[in-house]
């Protein structure tokens, strides 16, 4: 299982949790597992073609998965996945 850090804007979709445990061998599987546990997150994470929405940044530990293998990036037990949306408040 990996820990997924949920940003404030998505917390209402996961019952208010800041972190959710989800299983999977790669980043895509973990996020799919999250979306099946909490269906309200699905449309916010994934686009209609099944890819990650372009405005959602996902990090495996401290590295952007875009510079790794994207959704295919391998995940090990204990890894932390961070979902990061841009914020504009000032």
């Amino acid at each position, binding site marked *: 299982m990996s820990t997924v*850090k949920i*940003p*404030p*804007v*998505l917390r209402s979709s996961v019952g208010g949790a*800041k972190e959710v445990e989800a299983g999977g061998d790669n980043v895509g599987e973990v996020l799919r597992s999250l979306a099946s546990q909490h269906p309200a997150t699905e449309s*916010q994470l994934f686009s209609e073609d099944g890819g990650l929405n*372009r*405005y*959602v*940044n996902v*990090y495996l530990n*401290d*590295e*952007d998965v875009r*510079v790794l293998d994207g959704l295919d990036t391998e995940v090990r037990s204990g890894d932390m996945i*961070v979902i*990061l*949306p*841009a*914020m*504009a*408040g*000032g």
Partner: protein
Amino acid sequence: MASGSELIRRIKGQIEEVDPKEVHDLRERGNGAVIVDVREQHEFEESHLPGALHVPRGHLESRVEGSAPDKSKRVILYCASGNRSALAAHTMKELLGYEDVASMRGGITLWKDRGYEVEVPRTLTAEQRERYSRHLLIPEIGLEGQMKLLDARVLLLGAGGLGSPAALYLAAAGVGTLGIVDNDVVDLSNLQRQVAHSNDRIGVPKVDSAEIAIHEINPDVKVEKYGVRLDASNVMEIIDGYDVIVDGLDNFPTRYLLNDASVRKQIPVVSASILGFEGQLSVFHPYEGPCYRCLYPTPPPADLAPSCGAAGVLGVLPGVMGLLQSVEVIKLITGAGEPLAGRLLLYDALGTTFTELKVRRDPDCPICSRDPSEISDEEMGAFPDYEAFCAGAG
């Protein structure tokens, strides 16, 4: 026992004295002799020979080897009239083993009488020395860093939650010029966090209110006010000539616009954003690190990008984030430390955690992968998915 004047006369007979003309000619030829001013600090600060090193005679034995380590090299000492430098030359020759040391006859007084050039160093006034004394004590800032701060021009985008603490602390730190862009007026609901404003300035334009607060702390700061909304028609003109930009904007379209303009102008941006109990912070240094578009290629749709006005924010949070921005600004200006470029810092106030993520330059970035001259006016702030982009407006 010889009198003081007899002693000086005798010592002058034991060392080499050179005429100011000879020193002047040496400098013109650039032959690399080391010129050392042995007067006191205040005398040196008033004026000195161009390029002269400074070792007060009282510190000669302990410091001169640091300034002139090569004892075989030609060293020329001078003072006000040639007495102190003669005694210093004698010490260096006889006690410190300098092989080629001379004293300039007549000192800087005769040098000036001959009409030769002197350097008048910039320095702090007595009031500034007192005001910035705690900065002067830390080696990473010191006199040199404080001078850089006094010469610096910093532009604050927004005089709101993030801009307020940045304005106050950067003014206190002695940043010479603070530009402020904001077209809003002070509202009662701002005062929970926007500490540059006050109850008696409700209804006053924020740029005017912030100027009052800045001058209450430090009247020397020059404030340049832009009571307008930053847009494509004015951004290039407004940011021109600033050294660092502090992004405390409250909406996505302007953040992208600012990014594109700052990449074109190659001005570093210290960026922060806040919502609820969480803040984000990074430094976007064009061409040295990633830009805002490398981090966020696309803004989120409106339902994933609520504004503070819609979703609320802990009043203290922009204080924390605005001051972290201010620290980064001072580091960029003075060159101290490691700037937060290529890194994104997340602050979660509820959990009291800081998380650092890596931010890479995107080799396919639509803006910073290209030469600044190739970026056109039409592209700035523009976005392929323009409808979603505009929906992100706070």
